[in-house]
């Protein structure tokens, strides 16, 4: 269970460029929930993700992962509980390293690294098995540098890598928005499959209101650094995009967001 209590994140405090990215945000994410997060640009969606992951440390407020107060822990210290898939396929993997090496990195996520051989025969075999489950032919390309793969392939592997070590929450940061529609659909389907199979707790940021309602178990809307709308269960199932839009219309006037719908 992830608990955020009264989180404030201020960029460049005390200067002209001071910006309150998160303004007293509180959120409780139960185990097994699949949250979709929407909001206009600047609402704080990416900041929320970065704060949970530890890339940004909050100015005030607390974050608890189960009973652990991780508010001021650096991202690598939280890596044994938090896994991320980034929007940019290049950002989530090491382009210079091979597919097998990236996967090996992921298997050791959160553990201390020692002088054991990183790619033992046994490990290679298990990586090969995992990749063949994706049915993308990647099990034949273990020694290909990651940079040679397509965006979709990299995101698929990123998703797989996220599940290789135990995790408390999976963060998906618009992870299909940089892909073409067909690949995006594939990766989204894969995401849902993986979350289902491993019974993961997940948080996904998306710009598509339709997707926000179709996917997951709960939807949360952010605006100016706080949660203004939170819906789940049957109420949510009955909600349509139009309803969401009218919710938006009250608070938001982001053309891009409105144009995307319908």
């Amino acid at each position, binding site marked *: 269970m992830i608990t955020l209590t009264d989180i404030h994140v201020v960029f460049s405090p005390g200067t002209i460029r001071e910006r309150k990215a998160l303004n007293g945000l509180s959120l409780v994410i139960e185990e097994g929930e699949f949250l979709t997060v929407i909001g206009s640009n600047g609402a704080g969606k990416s900041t929320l993700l970065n704060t949970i992951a530890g890339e940004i440390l909050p100015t005030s407020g607390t974050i608890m992962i189960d009973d652990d107060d991780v508010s001021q822990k650096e991202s*690598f210290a939280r*890596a044994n509980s938090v896994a991320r898939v980034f929007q940019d396929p290049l950002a989530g993997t090491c*382009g210079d390293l091979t597919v097998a090496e990236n996967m090996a990195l992921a298997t*050791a996520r959160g553990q201390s690294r020692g002088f*054991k051989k*990183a790619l033992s025969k046994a490990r290679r075999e298990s990586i090969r098995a995992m990749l063949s489950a994706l049915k993308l032919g990647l099990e034949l390309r273990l020694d290909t540098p990651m940079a040679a793969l397509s965006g979709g392939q990299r995101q698929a592997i990123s998703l797989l890598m996220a599940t290789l070590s135990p995790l408390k929450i999976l963060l998906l940061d618009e992870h299909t928005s940089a892909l073409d529609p067909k690949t995006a659909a594939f990766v989204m389907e894969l995401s849902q499959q993986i979350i289902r199979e491993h019974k993961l707790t997940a948080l996904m940021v998306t710009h598509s209101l339709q997707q926000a309602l179709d996917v997951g178990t709960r939807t949360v809307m952010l605006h100016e650094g706080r949660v203004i709308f939170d819906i789940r269960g049957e109420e949510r199932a009955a909600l349509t995009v139009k309803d969401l839009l009218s919710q938006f219309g009250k608070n938001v006037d982001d053309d891009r967001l409105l144009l995307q719908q319908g």
Partner: protein
Amino acid sequence: MNVIQFTGALELGLIYSIVAMGIYLSFRTLQFPDLTVDGSFPLGAAICASCILYGMHPLTATLVAMLGGALSGFITALMATRLKMLNLLAGILTMIALYSINLRIMGRPNMALSGEKTIFNEFFSCFAIPSVSTLLLPLLIIVTIVGLIALLFLRTELGLGLRAAGSNAKMARAKGINDQRMIQLGLSVSNAYVALAGALFAQTQGFADVSMGTGTIVYALAAVILGEALLPTRTIKQALLACVLGAILYRFVISIALNSNEFGLQASDLNLVTAVIMVLAMQVPALKRHFKVMN
């Protein structure tokens, strides 16, 4: 070119290949341009020479020299990671400081070692090839050992973490790798290698001089880049071999330049001739591609 000049270039190339491997670790693997090497190369020589003259066994002296190099790399890394200093600047500051430190260690700018025990006459005397070279085989053995250690290290989980930190620090952090710690580790190992090369230089040439480090980063980079231009470097093994080849070839380039007196060139034209030959050598990949296309 005579045999002695050939083996001399080979020996020097082998010593500098260790520097190239160190630079490969910092510059290529960690993406950290580390200028400390201009200071850690003479540091290794100074520590080794002082220890040997003090009575220490040459092998111990060499290992102590490596520790000194590791420490200097660690300090640069601390400045860059904890004090958030620009990488280039951190290296420059350590390099400058090391100049004074080296003078302190030796007590003077130049320390002569000829006639003293070295690891070559103590340890490796059985590997001497009389009438060709007493140093070639021992150096080859040392470079092989050092290269293997680097290769095996980079294949461990720790080594993979290091490579990830250099390739994509954010992703590495997300995988639980403390990228600052990796930079500290990487620079320590890299400069330990460079200091080892300095210690070997002092023992083979018979003296340590405080000015022997100037330009080390330039030569090391030239060696690494030359090696990459001539050999494929997809795997780590290939990359390390390329370092060795590049360093040796660079010494041969200088040998050719030294021999070019007959063309009306003077001794003072050495640097220019070296540069011209290097430019030609860097064209080899383009030539290879051209001839491949032609067939």
